[in-house]
């Protein structure tokens, strides 16, 4: 009885090796087919969406590593003429200064602004409180970082929409130089409306590299101490405003150039 059992066990072991070989073959075929299955996946799967709460995208961006943490990204906040902007310091808004303002903001933090002196007849005494979230940085030459600050425009149309109670989200992205619009970009920042149902962050990522998100709505702070309204008042760095010479780059014109030396013609 015992020898018979041993024989059966040994035979079963041999069969097990055969079964293992067959299973291995099936697994190889499956792996080969799985490589083709990768091509059916979408090219990019977006983890982040533009409707995520402020700070969520930037904090995850910091987790990816790189020289992002602790870097003050220069930002130039632009607004219509006469508009004053103040940033929060220790859960209080500082002194308002007329736009444009150039400041350095931390990546991943959310900054609450107070926009006052809105030059609209229906906006007397009204204020709006947009937020700015920097999600990526630029790598300008060391002495040119402030000059090439990320422009963040609080357009008058956006301010009007915010005062009407609408929520405006602007995703600023760095254009891909091989996929740009053939238009001049000196007259303000060009922008376009995202299609209905599309995620502005995904659209910006398809066209370039998103670097900042501006959110603007009709929410006003509570009368009490609402520390969450200021998002912890992260630190920021003030840079001097752009000078007139920097605002209008000096161009080489025909009048500025010296006249070429006149050719000496032989006297008759």
């Amino acid at each position, binding site marked *: 009885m015992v020898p018979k059992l041993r024989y059966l066990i040994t035979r079963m072991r041999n069969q097990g090796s055969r079964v293992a070989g067959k299973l291995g073959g099936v697994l190889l075929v499956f792996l080969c087919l799985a490589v083709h299955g990768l091509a059916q996946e979408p090219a990019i799967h977006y983890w982040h969406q533009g409707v995520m709460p402020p700070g969520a995208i930037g904090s995850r961006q910091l987790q990816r590593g790189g020289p992002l943490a602790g870097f003050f990204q220069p930002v130039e906040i632009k607004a219509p003429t006469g508009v004053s902007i103040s940033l929060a310091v220790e859960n209080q808004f500082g002194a308002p200064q007329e736009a444009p303002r150039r400041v350095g903001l931390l990546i991943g933090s959310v900054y609450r602004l107070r926009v006052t002196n809105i030059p609209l007849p229906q906006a007397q005494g009204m204020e709006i409180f947009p937020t700015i979230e920097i999600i990526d940085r630029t790598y300008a030459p060391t002495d040119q970082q402030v000059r090439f600050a990320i422009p963040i425009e609080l357009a008058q149309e956006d301010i009007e*929409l915010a005062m009407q109670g609408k929520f405006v989200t602007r995703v600023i992205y760095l*254009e891909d130089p091989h996929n740009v619009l053939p238009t001049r970009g000196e007259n303000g920042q060009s922008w376009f409306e995202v299609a209905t149902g599309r995620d502005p962050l995904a659209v910006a990522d398809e066209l370039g590299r998103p670097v900042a998100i501006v959110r603007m709505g009709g929410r006003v702070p509570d009368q009490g101490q609402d520390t969450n309204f200021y998002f912890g008042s992260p630190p920021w760095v003030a840079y001097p405003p752009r000078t007139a010479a920097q605002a209008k780059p000096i161009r080489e014109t025909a009048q500025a150039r010296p006249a070429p030396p006149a050719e000496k013609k032989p006297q008759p």
Partner: protein
Amino acid sequence: MNQTTSNGESISVARKVAGTLRVPSSPRSASAQNTAVIDSPILSNQGSIRAWRLAIIVLGTLILCSCRSPASHSPNQALPQSTATPVGWTSESVDKTTPVGWTSKSVPKTAQGGYAALPPGAPCPIGPPGMELGVPLAYTAAGPWTPPGIIPPWPADEYLHDGGNAGPPIRVGPKGELLGLEMEDTVARYSTLDGRTVVEPSNKVSLYSPRFHAVRQIVDVEINQQRNRATGVVEPVKPLGPRTSEPVGLNRQNLQAVRDIGTNPALQLRSRKSHATLLAELRPKAFDNFYRVYENLAVIRTGVYVGHEEPILAKGTQAAVAWSHKQAVQIYLDHQTAGATVVSQKPQETFGIGSAPNPKLRVVKVASTPVAEPGDEVSFTIRFDNVGNQPIGSVQIVDSLTTRLEYVPDSAQCSLKAQFSTQPNEGESLIVRCVLSEPLSPGKGGVFRFRCIVR
């Protein structure tokens, strides 16, 4: 035959199994036989273990082979370095990114110090002996931090590039047109005395000029209220007995067979498109007989290269220059691989074939600024010199501007008698062309200059 081991186990069945497992049954001592026979189940276990090991090894090998292997070195990727790569993001670390690790021994040389014809499949040298990894430039408009292993300028989406021949090599078509001319390409084309047409790219110029765009989304909150109250509709229905009598009818319709014949005439659509191109002829304009500040170099003014101008010229030519494998000047003359005839690598390079006659054209391109904002004006200067030993004719300098560079009308100038023309390219910018009216004698050269506005 049943035998009993010291453990009291029967081995007759085990022998059968040993026979099936092809255990050698050579004459042994009784103890050895007993040991061999007793180990036969162990052998069967070892066989299955070997099979499992083989299966796992084969499986692992296939999985590793099926993984995505890293692509070949991209143009922006540095070559393997033997020393520690720079890390950190201080400005001092940028200068340490000069790749090292390749020696000039890896490339065959000729007796003159140039390169011999490389065997098929061999890596093409990037620079002359001693500088196979590119030109070590002292001044680059690179950022404060560069990932290890990446040659600046980085990141690429913050720079504008112009010059060189980034794509496939530009060839001359049967009608004399340039085939393969893409955006950002700058080449010079000339004809030799023996009827050959040579295309030679310039160096690459990079400007730090990021441009930002915005995407907007507006979300509106609306509150709609709708009150639905229960309503009752009373409609009395009284029983009715409708009765409809339909008479039985018979309809007959005779259809006559009709023959329908349709004739479709043969049609042929023929269209002829002419090969005309849109050319905007620009009238020749006088050349301003003075030089800009950034052009105050001997190689630009006189065509003579002076050693102490190397760092200044490097700054002007590249502004954030990186000579990589594809960006380096690739020259093919008379279906032969050109070899460098100069040993020291400069921001410009001269190539030619060793046997006479020896047509050579040196093309150096510089920009007026390494950084530019949208709306700024940038001047480009291209210095060309016939450094060969025979005249060359039909010299054309062609620059296909990238989308973000807008050519300033009537800004093209040339120190020699030339005609300028522009032509739209695929990037909704222009191809600026400078055609010299006269052949270029050996030792002669000139300057082609134009201005662009950064979009």
